[in-house]
């Protein structure tokens, strides 16, 4: 069996469904893989660890990848875990923010300080606002509490499959503004990244094949797969994860290896336009399609 270390983007949650299910169902073992899954607390660490050769694979975010590659990190996307944006601009359902235009003069919280400004700028621009018209605050650990308690008017960086459910559980209804509906080019929220100089394509392909199989199982057996996921660790078995599981399920990439080159080109161009990266890089510097190689 070959050993492979995967660093998640964060603690285990339903976004990682295919990985957990593959592990629990023995799909990795079937591929001759012994996968060690590591959870960090800071989402910006895993790509660094992979770039530094500390692990074979990490889960990261497509927008983050563009920034990191632009900064010279030896990273490349080798697979997709969640193929749509999960990020959303979240406000209260029965609050004063009914459209994005209502945010004028308001405060917006964010957590991961990556591409938030670019996303927000684009979304605001569609409604005749500029970044200067709002106040941006890094609220770090308390995305949903800060919006629920009304300290900020909206937060960016909330995941539509989580924070909405989280608020629902607290009895507060949330309203999501979806970036891809507000002028931001669509992107893959969660991707697998590897170090192009060190990676073993065969190993990664076997890994992706196992997760692909797990994804199919999840789609075919939503109930059973939830049981498997919830049974893998006691702290995962709760109402929020169960709700999130249902919402996440349709967003898993059915073909993890497959690469939509245009998505990467468009997003790179988008980031260059907003000034977050200087110049643009060709798609093959950002992502590879292992299957096509």
């Amino acid at each position, binding site marked *: 069996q070959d050993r492979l270390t995967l660093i998640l983007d964060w*603690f285990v949650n339903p976004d990682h469904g295919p990985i957990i299910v593959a592990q629990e169902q023995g799909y990795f073992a079937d591929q001759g893989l012994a996968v060690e899954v590591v*959870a960090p*607390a*800071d989402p*910006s*660490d895993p790509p660094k*660890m992979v770039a530094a050769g500390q692990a074979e694979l990490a889960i990261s975010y497509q927008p983050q990848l563009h920034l990191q590659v632009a900064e010279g990190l030896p990273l490349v996307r080798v697979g997709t875990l969640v193929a749509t944006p999960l990020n959303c601009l979240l406000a209260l359902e029965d609050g004063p923010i009914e459209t994005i235009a209502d945010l004028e003069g308001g405060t917006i919280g964010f957590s991961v300080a990556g591409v938030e400004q670019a996303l927000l700028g684009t979304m605001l621009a569609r409604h005749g606002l500029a970044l200067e018209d709002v106040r941006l605050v890094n609220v770090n650990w308390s995305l949903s509490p800060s919006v629920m308690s009304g300290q900020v008017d909206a937060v960016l960086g909330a995941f539509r499959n989580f924070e909405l459910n989280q608020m629902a559980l607290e009895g507060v209804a949330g309203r999501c503004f979806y970036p891809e509906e507000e002028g931001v080019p669509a992107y893959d929220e969660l991707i697998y990244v590897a170090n192009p100089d060190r990676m073993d394509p065969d190993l990664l392909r076997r890994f992706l094949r196992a997760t692909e199989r797990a994804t199919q199982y999840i789609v075919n057996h939503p109930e059973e797969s939830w049981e498997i996921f919830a049974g893998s660790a006691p*702290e995962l078995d709760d109402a*929020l*994860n169960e709700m999130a599981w249902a919402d996440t399920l349709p967003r898993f990439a059915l073909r993890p290896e497959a690469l939509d080159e245009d998505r990467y080109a468009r997003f790179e161009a988008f980031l260059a336009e907003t000034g977050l990266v200087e110049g643009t890089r060709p798609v093959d510097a950002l992502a590879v399609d292992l299957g096509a190689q």
Partner: protein
Amino acid sequence: MSGLRALAASALLGLALWQGLVWVTGLPRFILPGPARVAETLWQSRALLAEHALVTMAEVLIGLGLGTVLGALSAIGLAASARARRLVGPLLVFSQAVPVFALAPLLTLWFGYGLGSKVAMALIIIFFPVTASFLDALMRPHRDWQGLARVMGGSPARILWHIRIPAALPGLATGLRLAAVYAPIGAVIGEWVGASRGLGYLMLLANGRAKTDLMFAALIVLAVFTVLLHAAVNRATRPLLARD
């Protein structure tokens, strides 16, 4: 035992304050759940909490042991040499200003995601108060004793060993008491560096998933452990401080 009774009284006071805060401010439970809710969660999740608490306690005790030894040794090294003090002293202070997320990649790179990086993190946090407070005590002049010792033919090293160190033990005790308080939070911060077990992991997880009850339950476990650890170190170091 009166010590335990005092702790119980203090706990009651704390609970009363907490409940009072909840009532008076009317804080929503996703910001500050009441004691009753947390107690319920504490009981329901006792197995989960116990499992993670054991991990953290192991990290704390190892970190505290190593941090104390390292802190005491570095204080002694600094006390022994004015040059070391001038050169290394500022670097130690410097090291305390480095936030976790700058250290995290280095720590995990060198110590992995296991116990190592957590102990290292706890150690970095514990070590400084021990060093600083012991060093301050070591540097107090005690001119008369030191003069006498020089007349007696004591070398600087032996004067350090036989006079300055014993005279500075109250400072070490203060350092240890601070370390006992910082060790648990140090281990928790170490767990943020990357972990899949431990109270810090559980708290972050609970926080991220807005399971405020669970987070506070874990926090209570951590804090009670801290208070007990501090009380134990307090008692153990009392003779050093009672010396007149």
